């Protein structure tokens, strides 16, 4: 049975595409048909992934075969692929249901079929990326994934920023794909095979190209994972798409990059060199800290969430880095711990980031703005969205009993466990990574206090916010599902880790031993126990504490007296509220070395002592755009300008080039043995 699930999922998505095209004149029917087909496809991949995770045996099959050319495109769902398929399905299915409701207002009705087609193509290609068993299928799916995403980012293609975002996304994607093609061809040239089982099975033990190969894959997959400094496209492209697509991109698509990094990092290229793990840990730390710092200073709700995606990708990378350091030190159990921690965080991130983007989508649909400064007070108008968004904020801030805490706790463990076995420099780098993770987590808490409180609390700061209405049940139910996932994944880390022990054990460099045990009661790290976590034990304690607090405040609960907050003699209004800019200001000042803020204050004076009008402008520097990509773009354009010399536009000249090239190639090949 499980052998047919993967083709079934692809067929369901293809049905979605066909239905969307047939029903393109009837947007409502088109939405229901295409997105329910998509959700059904996700259910099929979930079932497939779950069965592989349960049995631990890979499911293989053939999708397309051309005996004449000797070409086969197949799929192979091993536990690692299954973990990513399950993660993707857990996010994609609720988001598809959300899309049915959201797209009714989120986009022009005439564009429904376009989005529905691109959506199903995207899902199909991402699932194939996770399941591909060889280079050919993988690269085709990878490219299709980039194109479908670019189409979705450009949904609102009348607006110039949307088009620019899509272009930036395509340009960066192709930089990455180029590196991947080069990497895979180098691998294939060495082994003469295009099947992952041959080239990523840990066979490359000694080759002068090993270092270059790893760097190529790191860049290629790093672009998709949003690793700093390859992240520049992410905060542009994720918010530009409709919110349902943003949720899928942030929670699901960066996982494609992380998946690739696990494939090559966890022994896929043989035992990692010591420098690789350090490099990944360093990149992860930088991504995590910079991601959360930029998120904190951001006042566009969706851009804030996109920057936080860079942060969470960084946290997963830190764990992978720690795992790779463990592997290179010959400690498979540390490798298992690091990769398990990172993979757990990937699943958790899909749940809470999906939830937050869907909530933000509800807010954008209700108010028409993404600017936090123009929101506020929505908890009175949209109580359910507010409650769910608060839960997502607490989860992403890494607070106990929710899933973000469980996986960040594991990342801490993977960093600290490595300490006992690492050599000189690595030994101090690991706890320092822990300190940076602590900083990231605390900054994320500040960031999401801002994201939630300034969006939903106090008074509305615009008319749109004051007149917002609650999202429909079709929008709220998927959020409730993801919120429930956040709670369940936080309360039961043990069973999740038991599954992850199997996933880590299936990786080529690790094998079946594990440095942690997970049961229903909780998780234990190391033998003898280094640390353990059982959230369930804490539940009655927290409940008792809350009960005591409620009992102590009982008198007040009976007679709540309401009065306007004291305004120092003046009257408080929406204008006197603390703003999002002001909230982030102290941290912007503290980290001004990173932010490089510029500000401009000009007073327009009319009365002798009081300014009648003050204009204030402040901006955060964009160092990567300015110092890396700006010069790089100019260099590429200049080189292209030079090359124009040979682009004469004359057909004869081009035919001559082909001839000359052909002769050179023949001469070169003839010289080979």
């Amino acid at each position, binding site marked *: 049975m499980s052998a047919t699930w993967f083709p079934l999922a692809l067929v369901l998505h293809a049905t979605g595409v066909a239905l969307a095209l047939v029903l393109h004149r009837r947007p409502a029917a088109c939405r229901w048909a295409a997105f329910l087909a998509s959700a059904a496809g996700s259910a099929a991949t979930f079932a497939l992934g779950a069965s592989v995770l349960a049995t631990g045996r890979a499911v293989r099959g053939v999708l397309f075969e051309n005996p004449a050319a000797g070409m086969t495109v197949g799929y192979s769902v091993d536990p690692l692929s299954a973990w990513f398929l399950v993660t993707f399905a857990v996010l994609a299915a609720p988001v598809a249901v959300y899309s049915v409701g959201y797209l009714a207002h989120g986009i022009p009705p005439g564009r429904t079929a376009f989005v529905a087609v691109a959506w199903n193509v995207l899902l199909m290609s991402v699932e194939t990326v996770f399941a591909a068993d060889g280079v050919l299928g993988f690269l085709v799916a990878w490219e299709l994934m980039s194109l479908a995403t670019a189409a979705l980012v450009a949904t609102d293609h009348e607006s110039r920023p949307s088009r620019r975002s899509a272009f930036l996304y395509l340009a960066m994607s192709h930089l990455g794909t180029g590196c991947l093609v080069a990497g895979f061809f180098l691998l294939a040239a060495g082994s003469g095979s295009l099947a992952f089982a041959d080239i990523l099975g840990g066979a490359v033990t000694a080759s002068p190209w090993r270092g270059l190969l790893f760097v190529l894959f790191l860049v290629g997959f790093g672009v998709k994972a949003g690793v700093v400094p390859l992240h520049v496209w992410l905060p542009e492209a994720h918010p530009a798409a409709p919110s349902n697509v943003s949720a899928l991109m942030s929670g699901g698509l960066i996982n494609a990059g992380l998946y690739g990094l696990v494939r090559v990092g966890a022994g896929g290229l043989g035992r990692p060199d010591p420098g690789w793990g350090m490099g990944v840990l360093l990149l992860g730390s930088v991504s995590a800290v910079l991601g959360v710092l930029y998120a904190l200073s951001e006042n566009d709700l969706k851009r804030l969430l996109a920057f936080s995606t860079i942060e969470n990708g960084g946290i997963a990378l830190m764990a992978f880095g720690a795992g790779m350091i463990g592997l290179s030190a010959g400690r498979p159990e540390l490798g298992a711990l690091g990769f398990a921690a990172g993979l757990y965080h990937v699943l958790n991130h899909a749940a809470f980031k999906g939830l937050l983007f869907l909530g933000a989508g509800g807010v954008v649909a209700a108010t028409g703005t993404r600017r936090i400064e123009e929101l506020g007070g929505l908890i009175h108008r949209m109580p359910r969205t507010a409650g769910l968004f608060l839960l997502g904020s607490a989860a992403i801030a890494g607070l106990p009993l929710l899933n973000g805490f469980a996986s960040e706790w594991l990342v801490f463990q993977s960093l600290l466990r490595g300490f006992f076995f690492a050599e000189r420099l690595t030994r101090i780098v690991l706890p320092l990574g822990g*300190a940076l993770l602590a900083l990231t987590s605390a900054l994320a808490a500040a960031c999401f206090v801002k994201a939630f409180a300034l969006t939903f609390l106090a008074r509305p700061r615009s008319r749109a916010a004051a007149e917002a209405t609650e999202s429909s049940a079709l929008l709220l139910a998927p959020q409730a599902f993801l919120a429930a996932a956040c709670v369940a994944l936080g309360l039961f880390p043990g069973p999740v880790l038991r599954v992850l022990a199997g996933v880590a054990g299936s990786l080529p460099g690790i094998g079946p031993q594990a440095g942690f045990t997970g049961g229903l009661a909780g998780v234990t790290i190391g033998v003898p126990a280094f640390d353990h976590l059982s959230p369930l034990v804490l539940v009655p304690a927290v409940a008792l504490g809350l009960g005591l607090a409620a009992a102590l405040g009982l008198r007040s609960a009976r007679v709540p007296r309401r009065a306007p907050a004291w305004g120092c003699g003046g009257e408080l209004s929406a204008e006197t509220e603390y703003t999002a800019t002001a909230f982030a200001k102290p941290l912007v000042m*503290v980290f001004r070395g990173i932010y490089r803020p510029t500000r401009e204050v000009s007073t327009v004076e009319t009365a002798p002592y009081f300014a009648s009008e003050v204009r204030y402008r402040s901006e955060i520097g964009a160092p990567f755009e300015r110092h890396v990509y700006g010069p790089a773009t100019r260099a590429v354009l200049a080189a292209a300008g030079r090359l124009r010399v040979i682009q004469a536009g004359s057909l004869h000249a081009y035919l001559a080039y082909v001839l000359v090239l052909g002769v050179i190639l023949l001469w070169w090949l003839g010289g080979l043995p």
Partner: protein
Amino acid sequence: MTTNPLPVALFAVAQAVGFLMLAPLLRGLIKKMKAAFQLRQGPRLLQPYSDLAKLLRKEPVRSTTASWVFVAGPRVYFASAVTATTLLPTVFAAAPLEAAGGILLLVGLLALGRFALATAALDTGSPFGGMGASREMTVGALAEPALMLALFTAGLSAGSLNLGELVRHTAERGTSIHPGEILAAAALFIVLLAEAGRVPIDNPATHLELTMIHEAMVLEYSGADLALVEWASGVKELLFMTLLAGLFFPIGVATSLAPQALAISALALLAKVAALALLVVLVESTNAKLRFFRVPELMAVALGLGFLALAMRFF
């Protein structure tokens, strides 16, 4: 460690109640000692109990713009602080809820309380709440890495992040203290000052809006809501002092349930907390509050101390 749920629950409740009962006394003691330094009489030692009792009877007034988040904030803050106390070994070298988790869970619970209170502070629409919340989260974010490095130093020397295991390990080692651990203790003490809202980071006695952090955040609270915040803050301060004493000065901690050992341990703990309180008073009385944007420098000192502690302990 017993695994039978009933004794564990009783132990946990007893410890939480103990913290709740003693926290106001600590506040009173610090106020009294501070007054002595300033040659004042000061309020009586038990005044904080009367204050709490009065506040708990008073009717709270809430802002008209506030939602349920404003009401939930102090309650979550209170519950998280009380729960955190059960993760800490005090008189006996084991924590009641040791089975739940170790240092990281403790830090996480305190972060939960801070998150809840800062979020709630933004609910009234008063700029003071926002100002306080923003500053509190800033100081919290800067203190966190230093706190973690200090705790890692202790945890990595003991080979465990489990607090009970940690204290047992340090208690077994007796009075020999590694110089690196003195630095870690110093880093943790600076974090304690920040978390408890003490001079030179914050001033618990002021109500001048430009200088305050924690007090600005809770400015809109009154009645029982305020009582919960005050009480929980006291518990948190006592908790940090107990943690500091337990991790770095484990002299006299009972490793058996013999009544004599427990009595000595309890007295030793009280003495250690009193000594730390005196240290806090000394710092408060001899320092001026730092300008807010100088606080990061102090936190950088704590971070540096934590790093040096780790480096000295292991290299």
